[in-house]
């Protein structure tokens, strides 16, 4: 099933909206500066609505089905969050409103920062970054700025385990530092010998994900943190897997210096088909002055005259600077605040307890069906190999595509890189046992099909709007735009 392009369904002169009169005396337009044509669709409101609703129906989404996508935390996005973000007082608030006129928004931001700090054991939090990757960049720039501020300029290396998300090494390069890859041991944990030999006075710090990208809590994490600190380096925690940690352990108490949170993972702001997100950053006292800004803060405490404090925006003393215009993805702040308010502290602890329960349940049920390279209690996700004994030639990709025919989104494929044919599975806490059983059953049936009717997997999916797509053609014959580019006109 295909939907025509919006450009192909209109008619010249049609318009999907109505506009007011000019109302004022008109001013002549500067003809020599005007464009000639504007090649946009010409459709009615109904045509546009139908077009986009039809498109939406080609998608899999949390609202339509299960999404066991490891490292992505595809939990339910509560509807109340959307309603709150759309309240006029938030949605129509100009970013450059004076502080007096934005006390409600600032109070909300301060509270959200405090809760994030409390959950992670950090003294300072900035919610200015726009996404997890931007939070990572902020964190690494903070580590760099810290060493620079001590005139310790030889520290240019950041250690990154080979199991890390690609964003980690990419971030290090972007920050002008050098990524040094650390091998993992056979359990997927940091190899302490390799760490020891990598540590010297050129190491600025280390980035590590907790629980690891293989879904397990590294039993040696306290040693890793101590060793890096002793060598003068700082510890960055990639908070992608924070959904396993709420009320379980505070990264700041473990000894981390800085971390980022993905509000769109842990705190249920929607993924939106790839964004927007919000990548808050938490830091201990040492790194707090370097946080990106501006940060919402109490600028005048409550007193006898005013029972409410005065909130404002401040730049931390040695801030690495602004990561984006204005003060962060505020719409995401509202959603995360709403989510945390509804759960409360103890409720958030239950979130992680049940996320871990669900992952371990699925893991226990699939043991013996698929190989498990790390066969132990896991965190909120676990990794297995997408291979089936007695069905050579079946790959993680085939299993993934076949899952679509069962109405389930595939797990994350081929990540982490250190696991052969990896399938990374994260059910999240919002799925009930019946859904997990349905998934387990589908995975077992696919293992059977792999042996009996392997072609069914190779040619999967069979029930989607399109079959496997030709990515080579897409990359070689680039078609990125459906409109012809007009020849440049003169300025007349």
């Amino acid at each position, binding site marked *: 099933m295909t939907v025509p392009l919006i450009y192909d369904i209109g008619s010249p002169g049609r318009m999907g909206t109505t506009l007011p009169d000019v109302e004022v005396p008109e001013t002549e337009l500067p003809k020599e500066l005007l464009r000639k044509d504007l090649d946009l669709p010409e459709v009615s409101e109904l045509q546009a609505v139908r077009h986009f609703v039809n498109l939406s129906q080609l998608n899999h989404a949390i609202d339509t089905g299960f999404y066991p996508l490891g490292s992505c935390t595809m939990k339910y996005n509560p509807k109340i969050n959307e309603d709150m973000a759309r309240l006029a007082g938030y949605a129509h608030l100009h970013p450059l409103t004076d502080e007096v006129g934005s006390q409600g928004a600032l109070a909300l931001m301060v509270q959200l920062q405090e809760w994030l700090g409390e959950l992670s054991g950090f003294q300072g939090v900035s919610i200015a970054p726009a996404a997890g990757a931007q939070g990572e960049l902020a964190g690494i720039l903070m580590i760099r700025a810290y060493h620079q501020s001590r005139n310790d300029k030889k520290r240019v290396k950041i250690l990154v385990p080979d199991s890390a998300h690609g964003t980690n090494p990419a971030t290090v390069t972007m920050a002008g530092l050098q990524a040094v890859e650390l091998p993992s041991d056979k359990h997927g944990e940091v190899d302490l010998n390799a760490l020891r030999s990598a540590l010297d006075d050129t190491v600025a710090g280390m980035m590590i994900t907790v629980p690891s990208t293989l879904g397990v809590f590294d039993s040696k994490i306290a040693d890793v943190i101590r060793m890096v600190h002793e060598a003068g380096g700082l510890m960055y925690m990639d908070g992608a897997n924070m959904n396993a940690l709420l009320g379980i352990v505070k990264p700041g108490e473990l000894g981390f210096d800085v971390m980022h949170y993905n509000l769109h993972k842990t705190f249920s702001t929607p993924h939106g088909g790839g964004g927007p997100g919000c990548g808050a950053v938490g830091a201990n006292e040492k790194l707090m002055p370097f946080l990106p800004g501006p940060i919402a803060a109490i600028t005048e405490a409550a007193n006898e005259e005013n029972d409410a404090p005065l909130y404002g925006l401040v730049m931390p003393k040695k801030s690495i600077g602004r990561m984006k215009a204005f003060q962060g993805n505020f719409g995401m702040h509202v959603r995360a605040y709403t989510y945390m308010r509804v759960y409360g502290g103890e409720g958030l602890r239950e979130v992680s307890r049940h996320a871990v329960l669900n992952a371990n349940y699925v893991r226990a049920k699939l043991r013996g069906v698929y190989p498990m390279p790390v066969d132990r209690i896991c965190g909120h996700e676990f990794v297995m190999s997408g291979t089936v004994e007695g069905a050579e030639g079946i790959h993680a990709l085939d299993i993934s595509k076949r899952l679509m025919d069962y109405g389930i989104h595939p797990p994350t494929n081929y990540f982490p890189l250190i696991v052969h044919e990896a399938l990374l599975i994260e059910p999240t806490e919002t799925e009930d046992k019946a859904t997990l059983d349905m998934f387990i059953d589908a995975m077992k049936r696919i293992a059977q099909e792999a042996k009996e009717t392997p072609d069914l997997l190779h040619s999967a999916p069979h029930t989607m709007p399109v079959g496997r797509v030709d*990515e*080579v053609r897409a*990359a*070689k014959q680039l078609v990125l735009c459906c409109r012809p580019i007009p020849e440049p006109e003169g300025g007349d």
Partner: protein
Amino acid sequence: MSWNTPAELKYMRSDEYLKLEGETATIGISDYAQEQLNDIVFIELPDVGAEFAKGKSFGTVESVKAASDLLMPVGGKVIAVNDKLKDQPELINSSPYGDGWIIKIQVGDAAEANDLMDAAAYAAYCASR
């Protein structure tokens, strides 16, 4: 598995080959490398006249799912690039040692080729991966 590893060539661990022809040489990627990359969709070539030291990146080769830097087996100055690859990068897949050559260089110091693998060593290296 076995891959074509012509005896007259020298090889790097990063899978570039070097064909020495007196003071000049031809550089490309091995049969093993093209197979690992699968369908090659794009190649970034250096400018003629550019100079690179041994081990430095002179370009990149991309498939749908991977990208790989191209490293100099020996230092030298680029005297020709295979322009055909701009439109037909798949030549590297079909003929890595023939029409799929990548650059020709004026060799700086031929002695730098001494630590490259010969065909037998490279074949064994590929088989071990």
